[in-house]
């Protein structure tokens, strides 16, 4: 007798398999023994014909169990069938995804290429996610994530490592001999060139231990300190220039994480007033402006210029460097600017306020000093606010705000539960599991960790963040306007943002961990919008575009002046202590107009915008390396092949490598300086 399997093939019937299945069910219910199972098997056999499908046999087993009065066992058997069915679907889906990834990798991030290692990396991530979904996480949390209510960032790293770290470069270069690399140690550098080469290697090594970005905080201060204290020789200008070139080239070309990804590297600078720090800053800006080998714009590192009125503004000691930084930003879109005169920064030392990656701040600490070096964000989890608004009672544009907050509370509690679960897993990793950053005591307060110790004492110095996206779409769904359109919506949006910040502050008190509110970039959330559109319909201003608006930003498509956008968004900056950025959009590089950019900067400081970038298209001709706006044909050489560089989700990247959702967002961007 033959049986048809699920894949269509035929095998010889084996009655023992039925007995085993019934026995396993009996095992749980205690309704029968081996003999009973054999009798039942005979009853099943009498009902089956040749060439029967395996599912049909299972139906008969179910029937027989019920007919014979083994109700509990029947129920147990049904459950067993369902679980196996899910397992098969899960494996088949996983295989489908792997097959897809083997052909073309995702284009989620600016710094991922399409290499063999990249495919291997993403397949590993996909398998990890599947593993977490199938058992590591509580089922109701998996459901919230898959439904799209919340988004745990870098989910594929859930139980493996944490997000980012600010590198204690000064300390490491001074005592480099104390750090064990894979096969031995390295002596501290004596010259600035070797210091900067080693800095790149350190950054690369650290990047392999974490899933997010790394940053050199106050690199100008590092240089000044190392020279002033005699660790490295006094360099001439040429040496400084060469050291900067090596640093930039390495960070722009040196892949990490199994060879597939450039590290998300950031450098903050601008406050050092000493001679060598200033020279280094000048060289860094000058070389960055020259670009790569053929003059191409550096995509990495991300440069962040720190401004302080008494150091940077006109008439202050570093006003020439600020002027140069603005000039470079008019050409290359970077550096971005961190304005430390904003009120909420005043409680921190300017040295300890730094931006990592595209916006992340790690400031404030309930478990130690509020230092920057050696600390980082552990992970963020983002709330899909528009989805909550869509679920809220009432009709679109006139929803029950109380009900919205009730639902937001529930989601916040879920994020707390998920984050606590994730944090506990990570805190229980051994120093050995994060071999360099924890094992070699790079992390703040990791000095005493032995290889087998858990990393909790160090990790709790970091921050856990709760992010949000689409406050604009949320307001639109709740009251019919977004915060660019009405004061009522602005007040509502501010209230919601403050609500999330207050929730984080309360959690910090309750748990003695550093919970912070995060303004999430949301340019790649196409899946979330499509899901919400499917569930709640196509709603104007809410689900009608292929992206949700970045955090608290005024929608990119909405015509608004620079001044007004900055005034509105500045009010949100104080609430997002885990990081945020505001942008303005220009139609061309303001290459001849740094004065204009400085006026915008002043307005930002006045409005409370702590961190900002000015976006514009940079097109680079592949033939003559002209950089500017190219409309089909290069104005310099007539070439038609060119790269389009745009800032998306906080990083520069090539438009051809950007996913559809981000592309939709770029195409919608309103340029403030257009003719009307």
């Amino acid at each position, binding site marked *: 007798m033959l049986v048809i399997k699920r894949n269509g093939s035929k095998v010889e019937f084996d009655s023992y398999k039925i007995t085993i299945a019934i026995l396993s069910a009996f095992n749980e219910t205690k309704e029968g023994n081996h003999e009973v199972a054999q009798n039942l098997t005979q009853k099943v056999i009498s009902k089956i014909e040749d060439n029967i499908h395996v599912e049909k046999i299972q139906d008969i087993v179910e029937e027989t169990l019920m007919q014979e009065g083994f109700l509990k066992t029947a129920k147990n058997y049904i459950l067993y069938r369902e679980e196996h069915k899910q397992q098969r679907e899960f494996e088949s889906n996983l295989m489908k995804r792997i097959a897809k990834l083997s052909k073309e990798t995702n284009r989620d991030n600016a710094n991922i290429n399409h290499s063999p290692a990249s495919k291997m990396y993403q397949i590993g991530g996909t398998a990890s996610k599947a593993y977490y979904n199938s058992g590591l996480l509580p089922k109701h949390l998996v459901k919230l994530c898959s439904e799209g209510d919340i988004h745990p960032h870098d989910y594929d790293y859930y139980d493996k490592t944490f997000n980012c770290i600010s590198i204690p470069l000064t300390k490491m270069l001074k005592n480099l001999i104390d750090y064990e690399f894979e096969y031995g140690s390295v002596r501290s550098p004596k010259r600035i060139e070797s210091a900067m080469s080693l800095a790149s290697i350190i950054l690369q090594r650290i990047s392999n231990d974490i899933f997010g970005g790394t940053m050199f905080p106050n690199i100008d201060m590092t240089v000044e300190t190392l020279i002033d204290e005699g660790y490295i020789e006094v360099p001439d200008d040429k040496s400084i220039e060469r050291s900067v070139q090596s640093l930039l080239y390495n960070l722009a070309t040196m892949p990490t994480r199994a060879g597939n990804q450039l590290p998300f590297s950031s450098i903050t600078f601008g406050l050092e007033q000493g001679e060598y720090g200033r020279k280094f800053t000048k060289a860094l800006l000058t070389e960055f402006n020259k670009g790569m080998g053929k003059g191409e714009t550096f995509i990495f590192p991300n440069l962040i210029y720190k401004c302080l009125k008494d150091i940077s503004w006109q008439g202050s000691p570093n006003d020439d460097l600020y002027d140069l930084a603005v000039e470079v930003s008019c050409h290359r879109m970077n550096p971005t600017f961190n304005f430390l005169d904003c009120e909420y920064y005043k409680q921190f030392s300017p040295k300890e306020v730094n931006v990592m990656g595209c916006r992340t701040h790690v400031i404030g600490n309930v478990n130690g000093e509020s230092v920057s070096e050696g600390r980082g964000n552990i992970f963020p989890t983002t709330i899909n606010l528009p989805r909550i608004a869509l679920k809220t009672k009432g009709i679109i544009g006139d929803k029950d705000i109380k009900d919205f907050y009730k639902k937001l509370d529930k989601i916040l509690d879920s994020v707390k539960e998920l984050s606590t679960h994730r944090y506990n897993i990570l805190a229980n990793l051994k120093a050995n599991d994060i071999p360099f950053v924890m094992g070699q005591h790079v992390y703040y307060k990791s000095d005493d960790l032995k290889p087998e110790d858990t990393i909790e004492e160090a990790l709790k110095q970091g921050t856990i963040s709760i992010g949000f996206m689409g406050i604009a779409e949320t307001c639109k769904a709740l009251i019919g306007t977004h915060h660019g359109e009405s004061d009522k919506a602005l007040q509502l949006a501010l209230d919601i943002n403050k609500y999330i910040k207050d929730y984080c502050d309360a959690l910090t008190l309750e748990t003695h961990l550093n919970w912070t509110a995060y303004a999430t970039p949301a340019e790649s959330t196409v899946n979330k919008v499509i899901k919400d559109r499917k569930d709640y319909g196509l709603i104007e201003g809410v689900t009608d575009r292929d992206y949700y608006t970045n955090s608290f930003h005024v929608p990119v498509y909405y015509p608004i002046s620079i001044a007004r956008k900055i005034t509105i968004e500045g009010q949100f900056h104080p609430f997002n202590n885990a990081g945020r950025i505001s942008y303005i959009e220009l139609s061309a590089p303001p290459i001849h107009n740094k004065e*204009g950019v400085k*006026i915008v900067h002043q307005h930002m400081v006045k409005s409370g915008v702590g961190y900002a970038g000015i976006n514009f298209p940079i097109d680079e001709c592949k033939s003559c390396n002209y950089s500017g706006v190219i409309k089909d044909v290069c104005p310099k050489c007539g070439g038609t092949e060119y790269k389009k560089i745009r800032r998306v989700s906080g990083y520069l990247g090539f438009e051809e490598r950007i996913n559809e959702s981000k592309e939709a967002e770029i195409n919608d961007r309103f340029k403030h300086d257009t*003719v009307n």
Partner: protein
Amino acid sequence: MEIAGIRTESFEDGIGIRVVIYFQGCTHYCYNCQNPHTWGFGEGKEVNIQYLLNIIEQDELATGVTFSGGCPFCAKNLDEIISLAKEIKKRNYNIWAYCGENIEDLQGEQLELLQYIDVLIDGQYVDELRDDTLAFRGSSNQRVIDIKDYNTMKGEAI
């Protein structure tokens, strides 16, 4: 007076952040002109001085105003543009202006308007001399003239 359009918060029509007034009407008809729709007189929108001053003052960040076009120096009612320029200067904005003629060829009321201009970009657009890398102008024959410097130089020459 007749305008073709207004651009606020411009970064491309002079230094700083500027309100650009595109006057309607031009008699130069440059080959491959960027704004040929601004050539014909009577095809724009009639506005008064107060309307323009309101727009300028609403641009919170603007430090200057740019007269573009068309060609502000070709306008039919130049006296109105002169009055506008006077009012703008009273409010402490600097004024840049584009002019299809060379500065040396300006005469009469045109020279009166020039008194209120801080920076003049002069000369026709010449397509063969187009260079997109230039600051604030289209072709390399055009000049960005700081009127203060120009007057000093002229003084010296005399």
